[in-house]
């Protein structure tokens, strides 16, 4: 049981985040207008971004549900900012990657980010990110010191040579199953806007 007061109040988290509520059933621009998505009730958007190409949402708190959008990651780009003190370099996206290689990119990036080898990828299958063909992958991992398993599901597609990926993660107990169908619906109906990426 690793608990401290600083951890409880979030004071140990260096990236201070400001949260803004999203309006239910109202479409919003995500990740620099590169994705257009329609959330259900209760979601909050964070001002702290996981990378230059990403955006995070949560409903109950990041430890309980985290929905991350990555948009228009270019050839040579990474999913996340390099974590402070990381000894390994984050893997880079290549525009000619196969679907399985994208899943490996995600898995290896998260192993480094979580500093954990206990990361298991499950089913990988074709899926759609909006109207674009892509890949869906399920995974799970046991967070160190927490004593519980988190489940995740990502959907990724390469559009005009750039990577778009939506990832949902939550504790296996209660939180993942409660929201995953809602997330799948959001992913299936979102719009990827590569034309916005061209203007960058």
């Amino acid at each position, binding site marked *: *049981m690793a*608990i*401290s*007061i600083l*951890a*409880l*109040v*979030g*004071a140990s988290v260096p990236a*201070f*985040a*400001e*949260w*803004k*509520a999203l309006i239910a059933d109202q479409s919003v621009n995500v990740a620099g207008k590169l994705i257009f998505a329609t959330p259900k*009730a*209760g*979601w*909050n958007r964070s001002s702290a971004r996981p990378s230059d190409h990403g955006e995070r949402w*949560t*409903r*109950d*708190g*990041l*430890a*309980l549900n985290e929905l991350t959008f990555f948009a228009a990651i270019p050839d040579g780009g990474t999913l996340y900012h390099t974590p402070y003190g990381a000894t390994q370099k984050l893997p880079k996206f290549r525009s000619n990657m196969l679907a399985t290689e994208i899943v490996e990119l995600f898995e290896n990036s998260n192993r480094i980010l979580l500093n954990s080898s206990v990361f298991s990828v499950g089913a990988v299958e074709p899926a759609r990110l909006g109207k674009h063909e892509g890949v869906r992958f399920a995974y799970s991992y046991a967070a160190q010191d*927490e*004593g*519980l398993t988190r489940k995740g599901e990502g959907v990724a597609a390469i559009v005009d040579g750039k990577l778009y990926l939506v990832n949902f993660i939550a*504790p296996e*107990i*209660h*939180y993942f199953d*409660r929201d995953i169908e809602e997330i799948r619906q959001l992913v299936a109906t979102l719009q990827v806007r590569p034309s916005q990426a061209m203007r960058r």
Partner: protein
Amino acid sequence: MARRLSIGLALATVLAASPILAQAPVATEKYAVREGFAFTPETPPRILVFRPEVKVGEQTTAGIFQNNAEWHAAVTRELSAALVATGGKRGIEMVLHDDRAANSQLLTEHRALFRLVVGTIIRHKLFGKDPLPSKVDSFDWSLGSGVAKIAPAAKADYGLFLLSHDSFESAGRRAAKLVAALMGNGDIAGTHFGYAALIDMKNGDIVWLGVDLKAGGDVRTAEGATQRVEQLLNGFPVRASGKAVAP
């Protein structure tokens, strides 16, 4: 219609140890009650008290925390007894949970989720600097309906989880602090905090949560444990009125 969410801020405040913060009283006790929650007035609720989750030990001169097994046993025993006794005084039937009769793996997993959820509530609702806008007018966290499978034989309406973390200073550390004080330097006192929550055993909803980040009472003793429990149960729903109100 006025919302019935109840979030309490205890009057007890402390002055932070740091001279920089010494001018600003910091609230260290808060509680929250789920919107609209009330005990059924007709029948007394049956509350299953899960074994308190205890971390207790000594803070060495170097500031390193060392667990103390003897204290751990004493604190667990005294807090459990204090909870049952306090419930009785409030007209609420509190029964100790028999760990041997439970689905232990399920309980372990839900304890872990409980810590995570409470940490989230503390950070995003009660004390942290990054509140979630969607939660400003609500207190609706849950552990999910899986809690109903933990101890169905107990036939409990609610479950009570409690966590206590106490770090006592070693003799060497106290001496070092005295020296530091004589030299004009401040120091950080031992850490004592805890929280308790009432869970609806049908659906896992957290219906009440009390948090004390600077708790009092030497929980290694019966008297201190009673004091700690009384502090943590600040704002615990009162049955007599049938409404969830602060005492």
